[in-house]
C-alpha cells in the first residue's frame, strides 16, 4: 500500500470490485466505478475481460475515459456496435453475460433492487430514473454486483418502496425462470456483502469489512438484521500496483476517482 498517498474510498471500491472479476469473460457495466473496476481487472486478475455496454458497444478501445455508456470515444475504434435489439435480445437475454454491475436507490436483504421511486409509485416522494435495463440485467446476467458508495439504512432497507429489479427468489415466485443468481456481491464504502445465490431464501451476508470498519458499524448502517459471516474478513487495501494503474493509466484525470 502506498502509505505516502493512501487509497481514497473510490480507489478502494474500484480495487475491491476488480478482484471480484477474476475468471470472468463478459461484463455488462455502466460508467463510473464499474468502468474503473473492469479496466483494472483487465490489467490484473481477468486479462481479456470484455465490457459490453447496453448502448450496443462491444470491444471498445476508447482514447479517453468515457463519460457515458454511449460516449463517442467508445464507438471510434470499437470492435463492434450492435443495434440495441441485438444487444439486449441476443447478448443479454441470450445469456452471454457472466456478471453485470447495477446500482440502486434501495436494496433489500435478498438483493432485490428499487430504482423507481421513494414512497408510493402512484404519488412518489421522489421520482427516480426507473429501471432502464436493470430489470433485464437482473433476470439475464449470470450474477450481479452492486456498488453503493454510501452504506446507510436509507439504501439498505427491510422493505423496498418498489421492487424494480427482482432477484431470482421473487422471479421464481412469480413463475419466472431467471437465468442468473441475482446479486452475489454488494460492495460499499464499509465492506462487502455476499450471496452465493444458489439457494432459495438466501440473504446477503457481511463477508468482509474495510480496514477500520467494524461489523457492528455495518449492521447499524443496514436497515435489516444483517447476518455476519463466521469468517469475517478484512478487505485487503489496494496494492501499490492497483493504485498505480488506477491513478496513472486508467483515470489520471480522476474523473471517477473523485
Amino acid at each position: 500500500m502506498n502509505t505516502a498517498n493512501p487509497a481514497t474510498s473510490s480507489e478502494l471500491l474500484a480495487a475491491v470490485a476488480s478482484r471480484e472479476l477474476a475468471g470472468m469473460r463478459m461484463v455488462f457495466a455502466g460508467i463510473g466505478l464499474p468502468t474503473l473496476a473492469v479496466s483494472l481487472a483487465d490489467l490484473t486478475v481477468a486479462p481479456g475481460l470484455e465490457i459490453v455496454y447496453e448502448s450496443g458497444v462491444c470491444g471498445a478501445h476508447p482514447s479517453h475515459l468515457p463519460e457515458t455508456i454511449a460516449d463517442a470515444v467508445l464507438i471510434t475504434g470499437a470492435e463492434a456496435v450492435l443495434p440495441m435489439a441485438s444487444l439486449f435480445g441476443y447478448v443479454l437475454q441470450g445469456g452471454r453475460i457472466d456478471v453485470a454491475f447495477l446500482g440502486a436507490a434501495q436494496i433489500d436483504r435478498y438483493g432485490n433492487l428499487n430504482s423507481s421511486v421513494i414512497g408510493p409509485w402512484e404519488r412518489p416522494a421522489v421520482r427516480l430514473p426507473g429501471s432502464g435495463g436493470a430489470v433485464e440485467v437482473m433476470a439475464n446476467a449470470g450474477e450481479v454486483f452492486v456498488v453503493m458508495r454510501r452504506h446507510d439504512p436509507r439504501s439498505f432497507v427491510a422493505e423496498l418502496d418498489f421492487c424494480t429489479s427482482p432477484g431470482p427468489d421473487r422471479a421464481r415466485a412469480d413463475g419466472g425462470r431467471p437465468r442468473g443468481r441475482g446479486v452475489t456481491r454488494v460492495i460499499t464504502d464499509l465492506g462487502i456483502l455476499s450471496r452465493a445465490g444458489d439457494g432459495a431464501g438466501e440473504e446477503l451476508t457481511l463477508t468482509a469489512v474495510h480496514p477500520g470498519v467494524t461489523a457492528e458499524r455495518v449492521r447499524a448502517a443496514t436497515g435489516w438484521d444483517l447476518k455476519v459471516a463466521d469468517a469475517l474478513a478484512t478487505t485487503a487495501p489496494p496494492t501499490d500496483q492497483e493504485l498505480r494503474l488506477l491513478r496513472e493509466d486508467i483515470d489520471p484525470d480522476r474523473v471517477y476517482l473523485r
Partner: protein
Amino acid sequence: MDKTTTMSEAIARYVADGATVALEGFTHLIPTAAGHEIIRQRRRGLTVVRMTPDIVTDQMIAADCVAKVVGAFVGNSSAGSLGELRRRVEAGTLELEECSHYGMICRYLAGAQRLPFYPLRSYAGSDLPRVNPGLRKVVSPYPGPDGGEPEQVYVVPPVHPDVTIIHAQRADRRGNVQIWGLTGIQAEAVYAARHAVAVVEEVVDDAVVRADPNRTAVPAHAIDAVVACPHGAHPSFAQGYYDRDNAFYRRWAGISKDPERLKAWLEEYVLGTRDHAEYVAKLAADGTWDRLAVGSAPSGSIDYGRRLRKEHP
C-alpha cells in the same frame, strides 16, 4: 420522390395535438431540434414515447406539450434529475407509463412486426406489472426446457406511434437514412410508426447513399419527410460530426430544478429563436461548436464489386 422539407413544415404536418410521438436515439442522435420545433408550434396533449425520456422530453413537458410519457429511464443521463418531469410526476400532474429498456425495445419490435405481443424474459417478480397493466403473461405451448411444465413469460403490447422522429447523420432526398456509431432502436421505432420524419445533419446525393447500401439504417419506403438540420441533436452528439455537450447535461440539472430558470431558458433558447439555425447561431457565440468539434477517424472503404461481363456468370 423528393421528401425534403423544413422542420416547421414536417412538425406542422406530422405532429398533431394529442398525437403519440416517438422520439428515438439512445444518448446518440437525439432529435432535440424536432422537440424544440414542437415546443415552438405549441403542440398540446402529446404522448411522448421514448426509451430514455431526457432533456428534450423535460423541455417539452415544461412547455406544456406533453400529457403522458411512455419510457424506461426518466433521468438526465448520469448528470442528475429531469426537474420538470420529477416535479410533475411527484405532483401527480403527468402520466407516466413505466417500462424498461428491453420492454420498450420489444414494444417497438412488436409494433414494427405487427404482432399482438412480444415475449421477453423480464418482469417476473417485479412490481412493474402491478403499475403497468400492459405487462402480461403468456404460457408457452411447448414443454419446459427439462421436458416439464411449460414456461411462462411476460409479454409486452406493440406500440404504434402516430409519428416517429429520428435524427441521423445523413439521408438522400428520397429518405434513405444512413446512421453510424450507435444505431439504437431507430429502425424499429420508425417501422412501428404510421409516419416517420428523419432529421439529418446533411442531405447527400443519391450516389453517396447507394455507394454503401449496408449503411442505410432506414430505407426510403419507411420515411415520409427528410429535414436537413445541422447540429440538430445537440446537446447529444452525432458520431463524426460533433461531440456530446456533457457540460450542458450537467447544467440542465440546475436549470430544470428551478421552474423560473427553466422557463427563462425555454424563452431564450427555444421560444426566442425562430428555428434551429438561430439556436445554433446563438450557441456559436459562446464557442459551443468549437468546444464540441471532433477530428477525423475514417472508416476506410470496402468494395461492393461490379459485374464485368455482360452475360450472367
